[in-house]
């Protein structure tokens, strides 16, 4: 009979119970309290670390409200996507977010349209003053596109990795953040110019 018994056990699903109600909230509270604890314990080192952390974050998310907004959208998309995804995704030739589920396809479509629209707005702002900002933004977008291609490669290897799907969504989010930041900077530049002109008058 050999390893028959072990085989049988390894094929069974013994995780039959439901997690207690509200476990997620309790865990988040725990994470929060740990953070608070660490803050008071290692104030000095924490400050240095946090400054660094914040700088890192700044690069990624200059606008906190937009990131929250997009996190919500992405969270929703992941939730919707995964419920369908768990029921079994159909393999398609072009392996992208859209191949995960119809909801993911919708999310991807939505992201792409938003990015295109913002890019168009950015292109309209082309002027000698904004040239630098626009060029920088486009370079950063290219970098994100390269990242996206490598994530896509991961996706071919590991199609049911939630991490990979989340990375794709984050990639889109970052592009949108980047574009919004650029547009904001251009707007600031414009108001600054206006103010300067008024002073001269």
């Amino acid at each position, binding site marked *: 009979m050999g390893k028959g018994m072990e085989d049988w056990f390894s094929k069974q699903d013994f*995780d039959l*119970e439901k997690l207690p109600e509200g476990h997620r909230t309790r*865990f988040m509270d*725990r994470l929060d309290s740990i953070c608070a604890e660490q803050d008071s314990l290692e104030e000095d080192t924490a400050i240095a670390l946090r400054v660094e952390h914040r700088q890192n974050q700044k690069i990624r998310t200059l606008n906190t409200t937009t990131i929250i907004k997009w996190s919500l959208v992405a969270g929703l998309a992941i939730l919707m996507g995964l419920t369908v995804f768990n029921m079994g995704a159909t393999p398609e030739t072009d392996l992208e977010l859209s191949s995960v589920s119809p909801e993911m396809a919708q999310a991807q479509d939505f992201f792409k349209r938003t990015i295109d629209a913002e890019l168009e707005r950015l292109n309209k702002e082309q002027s000698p003053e904004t040239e630098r900002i626009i060029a920088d933004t486009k370079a950063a977008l290219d970098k994100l596109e390269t990242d996206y291609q490598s994530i896509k490669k991961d996706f071919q*290897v590991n199609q049911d*990795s939630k991490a990979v799907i989340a990375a794709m969504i984050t990639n889109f989010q970052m592009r949108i953040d980047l574009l919004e930041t650029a547009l904001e900077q251009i707007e600031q530049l414009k108001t600054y110019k206006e103010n300067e002109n008024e002073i001269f008058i």
Partner: protein
Amino acid sequence: MTLTATEIELYQLCENGDRRAQMQVYDQYAKGMYHVALRIVRDTSQAEDIMQESMITAFAKMKQWNREATFGSWLKRIVVNNSLTHLRNEKRMPTTDYEEVAYQMEQVPDQQIDMEAAGMTAKKVLKVMDTLKESYRQILTLSLIEGMDNEEICEILNISNAMCRTTISRAKSSLRTKMECYG
């Protein structure tokens, strides 16, 4: 084990305290790890508590994960350890009795039970295992359900290899008897 670049980044973010990454890992493993703890401590709120504490420990000690094992099996090890520590603190840890030590002297063939022929399901087996004595239930849980190898079990339960093998063997024959009663 193949870890994709995205996963490497995800665990890095967890280590750095990125809340979104941590919740993502939590969601991925919460159910499985909750059950690992539940099977050992047999109390839902304590199982949740242990699962969440272990998750936080894993985030804090991510550097100790050697990446040879999957994150899941490393985390499982932490959960099992914490669950057993919990039992020990509650003094519910099974003690070794003379009978078992004496049994080590005997030659024990590896017991096998044809589960399919016995018409077993996961649910039924868990029920039958609940009727076993604590030390048998525990070692079979680790060995058969969690799929740990004997070496790991010895280390975790702090028992000798011979002890481990004989206890598993005895536990299996006890399981067989109980299954016959059940069926």
